[in-house]
């Protein structure tokens, strides 16, 4: 036998195992280890297959000058991650193992994820670890890890890897590094030269503009003044039940006016003057792309975008769903709708639903407008779980399965009823709504948020008794804070970042301490970093600039732009900015140091002093007794001596929320082995009274 040895490179170990099993023809797949790195030996067509995986990225872009005080730096190279990154020692074994095994191979096949990161990982490993095999390697393209699709993809291999996609990916890494490293170094050095203390201050090409959205929102919220308005409701009695009718004006801006309506209508008889019945068709939802899946999972289960994307990745690696990092809302017939539904019908919960769809002649998905050249929308493969899924995995899988079925459903029909009631010259509306025909909602039921509001049988001319008329006091509300999900949507809408990077950028903002909370609040430091960038180099955090670069990088992928040109332009743009930052280093350093100092103070600030009203309460430590306590900043001015004792164990964090019982600010206490609990330190708080008595 003159079999050849073929090296197949996957992205993740789980994918390698699945691929080896799917392609193997004779005997059993042999799981082996080299330097502790797992790989698989299989055979097919008389050839020996060696299937090994990378570990995500094995190489990274690094500056040639390592000294963190030096900037600008524009010379970068691709380095093994273990050489330049902390906590990446694992990558050394991996690179060495792949290197060794590649020497025995005569053919090379790339089988990483078919997208920008997958292409970049593949290209760098083939080029640097396998000794320049990027030019001769072939490419497997697939969207699911089902045995069937993997075999087909092996039979119909592409003649070479996707160079322009890898180029686009490498360009993104390079440009992001040039911006991130230079700007971060500029700010960190400025702060260090001024204060003598070292604090890493990071910003990035996409991170900056994203933080700016949050800062803008924070400004709107912090300068918001609520204004009063009123609504009026009439409680109407019909056939022994009470219904709420709303006044025709949804908001009344003058108190006097609201009062006079209440006065005029109370105790009167109303007449039904008009009944408006409207039927609307509601089309099925479109198939999930990654961002609509993230939005839905956040709305239903409160999973952050990154969490959803991690769970989806696991489901993909178990061959339960198709590749999730897609921006497509299309489901091409080639995926085999019927086959998938038939396979899903083996799951009792889906049996009735799938057979309902299978009985129909034509299956046409309600596709959305978004496309992706590499992958279809997210769909279930039809495989059933091989193990017991965790709760979040099961929920997300169920959501994806039901969405897939719903996409083929018929439109739902809903009816809304609006009844006009005249009361003493004033008009009120009674509203009802109801689903007349379920359509697609039948498939998506647990995830449809709709409540029927039924009205009794009524006719125009009917008279009804007005039981009570109520005025409600309301205030205008500030715009809502962003949450991880709405921020991700904002980034997508503004065209910054990519589907693969957005969720991570948001997580970075959290880990840098720039933002906190699920309802996102910007910290002092985050605020000032944006203010400083905005003051000294607004072009760097402008959305237009970031978006423009994003588009250029997409053009590289489609072959209409070159990496050298894009990188050249980006550097040209950055150079004068860095010069300006250097010239004004003292000013910037001063502002940043001040901000870092305030940020530290902010972490310890509990809230306004309820005693003197002008000072702030902060967590302090006594020099004499070394004990923690809460004191007022006005103490140092000799104005206020307020202080409160604190528990000495555990870590303390101001909650930025007031006690429901007394309105004083709360502190969260975390100690080992205990659930975090909220402390109200007001000795007069009613909560204390209660616990004293009991």
């Amino acid at each position, binding site marked *: 036998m003159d079999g050849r040895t073929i090296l197949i490179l996957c992205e993740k170990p789980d994918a390698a195992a699945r691929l080896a099993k799917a392609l193997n023809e004779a005997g059993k797949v042999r799981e082996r280890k080299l330097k502790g790195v797992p790989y698989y030996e299989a055979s097919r067509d008389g050839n020996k297959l060696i299937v090994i995986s990378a570990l995500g990225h094995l190489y990274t872009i690094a500056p040639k000058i390592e000294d963190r005080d030096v900037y600008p730096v524009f010379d970068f190279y691709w380095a093994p991650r273990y050489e330049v990154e902390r906590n990446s020692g694992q990558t050394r074994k991996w690179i060495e193992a792949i290197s060794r095994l590649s020497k025995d191979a005569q053919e090379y096949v790339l089988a990483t994820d078919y997208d920008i990161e997958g292409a970049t990982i593949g290209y760098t490993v083939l080029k640097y670890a396998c000794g320049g095999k990027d030019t001769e390697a072939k490419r497997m393209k697939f969207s699911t890890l089902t045995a069937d699709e993997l075999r087909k993809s092996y039979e119909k291999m592409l003649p070479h890897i996707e160079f322009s996609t890898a180029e686009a990916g490498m360009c993104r890494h390079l440009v992001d590094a040039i911006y991130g490293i230079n700007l971060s170094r500029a700010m960190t050095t400025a702060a260090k030269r001024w204060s003598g203390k070292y604090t890493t201050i990071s910003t990035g090409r996409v991170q900056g503009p994203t933080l700016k959205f949050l800062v803008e929102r924070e*400004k709107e*919220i*912090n*300068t*918001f*003044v*609520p*204004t*009063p*308005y009123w609504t009026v409701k009439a409680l109407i009695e019909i056939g022994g039940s009470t219904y709420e009718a709303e006044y025709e004006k949804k908001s009344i*801006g*003058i*108190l*006097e006016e609201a009062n006079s309506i209440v006065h005029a209508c109370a105790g009167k008889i109303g007449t039904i003057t008009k009944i408006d019945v409207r039927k609307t068709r509601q089309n099925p939802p479109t198939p999930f792309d990654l961002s609509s899946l993230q939005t839905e999972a956040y709305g239903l289960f409160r999973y952050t975008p990154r969490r959803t994307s991690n769970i989806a990745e696991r489901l993909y690696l178990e061959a339960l769903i198709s590749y999730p990092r897609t921006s497509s809302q299309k489901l091409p017939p080639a995926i085999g709708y019927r086959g998938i539904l038939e396979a899903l019908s083996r799951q009792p919960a889906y049996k009735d639903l799938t057979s309902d769809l299978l009985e129909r002649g034509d299956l046409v998905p309600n596709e959305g407008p978004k496309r992706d050249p590499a992958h279809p929308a997210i769909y279930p493969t039809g495989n059933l779980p091989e193990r017991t899924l965790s709760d979040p995995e099961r929920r997300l899988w169920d959501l994806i399965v039901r969405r897939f079925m719903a996409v083929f459903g018929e439109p739902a029909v809903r009816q809304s009823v609006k009844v006009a009631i005249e009361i003493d010259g004033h008009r009120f509306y009674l509203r009802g709504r109801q689903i007349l025909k379920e359509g697609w909602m039948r498939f998506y039921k647990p995830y449809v948020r709709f409540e029927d509001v039924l009205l009794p049988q009524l006719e125009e001319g009917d008279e009804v008794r007005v039981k009570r008329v109520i005025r409600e006091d309301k*205030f*205008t*509300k*500030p715009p809502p804070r962003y949450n991880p999900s709405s921020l991700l949507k904002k980034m997508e809408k503004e065209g910054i970042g990519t589907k693969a990077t957005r969720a991570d950028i948001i997580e970075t903002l959290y880990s840098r301490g720039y933002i906190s909370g699920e309802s996102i609040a910007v910290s002092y430091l985050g605020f000032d970093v944006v203010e400083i960038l905005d003051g000294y180099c607004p072009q760097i955090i402008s959305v237009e600039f970031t978006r423009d670069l994003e588009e250029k990088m997409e053009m590289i992928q489609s072959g209409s732009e070159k990496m050298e040109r894009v990188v050249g332009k980006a550097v040209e743009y950055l150079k004068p900015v860095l010069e300006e930052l250097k010239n004004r280093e003292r000013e910037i350093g001063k502002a940043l140091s001040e901000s870092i100092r305030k940020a530290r103070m902010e972490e310890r600030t509990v809230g*306004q002093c309820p005693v003197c*009203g*002008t000072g702030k309460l902060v967590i302090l430590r006594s020099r004499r007794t070394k004990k923690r306590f809460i004191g007022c900043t006005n103490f140092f001015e000799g104005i206020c001596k307020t202080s409160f004792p604190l528990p000495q164990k555990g870590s303390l964090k101001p909650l930025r929320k007031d006690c429901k019982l007394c309105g004083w600010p709360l502190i969260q206490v975390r100690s080992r082995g205990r659930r975090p609990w909220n402390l109200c330190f007001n000795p007069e708080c009613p909560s204390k009274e209660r616990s004293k008595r009991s």
Partner: protein
Amino acid sequence: MKCEICGRRAESRFCELHKRAQENLREKYEEWKRAMDITWEEYLREVLKNPLTGLWVKEVARILLASSEEKEAPSMQEKV
């Protein structure tokens, strides 16, 4: 000059951010007056206890209230 409230650089009493809060506070008083019978001091107290009011607005309102109480300003018209 430094902002009386936060110590940021300021051209007058308050920095850019607190100035914006102060401007909003003045502007919205007109709407409050149209909506109901209310004096400047009552307005400031209402705004201070409202949980929807922005943080910087509260900081400004607290100072304005303290100073107008000190002077016992006879009419809010002069203050605005």
